């Protein structure tokens, strides 16, 4: 069997594979991704739900909170243990998590997500010009 234009094809394949594998080569020898260290609240030990629930479901909870407070007028959240909280990002979440840069932004930056919460809601650090 004869490979026509073999030189060009092999060179092309080598270049392609080289480019394709650059990310692997680039990251070789670097430490694996580790979860960022978050600044946890000092005044409160327990969030509205368990840590695992909050980590995976806080976006859905916030969506449900928004619709419940705005559309149904239900502004009190009763968690699975029966404890009550005011439904409010600014007045409940951020009263404990008093630092957006040290809490929200850490994971959001790593995951490359930019939620638009703070276009309108006021972060606890306040706003600067």
């Amino acid at each position, binding site marked *: 069997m004869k490979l026509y234009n073999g030189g060009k094809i092999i060179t092309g394949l080598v270049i392609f594979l080289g480019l394709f594998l650059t990310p692997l080569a680039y990251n070789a020898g670097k430490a694996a991704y580790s979860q960022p260290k978050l600044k946890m609240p000092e005044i409160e030990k327990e969030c509205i739900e368990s840590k695992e629930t909050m980590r995976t479901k806080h976006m859905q909870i916030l969506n449900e909170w928004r619709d419940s407070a705005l559309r149904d007028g239900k502004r009190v959240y009763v968690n699975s243990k029966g404890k009550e909280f005011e439904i409010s990002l600014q007045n409940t979440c951020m009263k404990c998590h008093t630092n957006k840069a040290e809490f929200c932004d850490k994971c959001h930056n790593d995951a490359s997500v930019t939620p638009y919460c703070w276009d*309108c809601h006021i972060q606890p650090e306040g706003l600067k010009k």
Partner: protein
Amino acid sequence: MNHTRRNFLKFAGLTAAGLCVASAWSVMAAAAKSATEKVSEKALQAKRWAMVIDTKRVGTKEAIDVLAKACHAVHNVPDIPGRQNVKWIWGAGFDEAFDQPNNFMDESVEKREFVLLCNHCASPSCVRVCPTQATYQRPDGIVAMDYHRCIGCRYCMAACPYGSRSFNFMEPRLHLDLSKLNKEFPTRMRGVVEKCNFCVELLAKGKMPACVEASQGALVFGDLSDPASEVRKVLREHYTIRRKPALGTEPSVYYII
């Protein structure tokens, strides 16, 4: 045991019933344990919120400015010079407010300024035209907005016959005093429409709207569906009019002339 059709059907029926009960039980058990939302016990509630404005008592620019300052401070409403200003509550003369010009009006009414705000209509035209349901009518009659959903198409502004809605042509935070923000309430962003919300967030905490608190009794707020309420009492005792009643939107804001 003999395998008859009758026995087979009995067994199949029992199994099906058992499966139904078991699944219903697990759903109910999960519902009992999971989190819920409810209305606060402190919240003020009504079938239809309404406001009566005594225009004899708040009839000047200065008096209306006091109300506007109180409202705009609570809700982080920016003050933008020119035609792109955002306003939740403001003042205007009789002709502009009521659309029934009169050449020979008595002097006191002719010179009076009238408090204008969203009328929280019973059949709101803004709600009918909103393509995303960003503006909607709550069961208590308040026409509210969900700024998360607003796409800034401004159909509602075209539909509102009272000019109650303002568009954020620019980033509102550029025109707010950032050191004096009310940190309990959000601001808005560029590209959304905003308006008076009858202070739903204060009613939910058992407080009266900010303008009513600042008016020293000139603005009365209450439940229109309750004959014993303060608003109904005031409406019985005074002659009142509403803005542009011929349009059929049924405003909830009444003016004592």
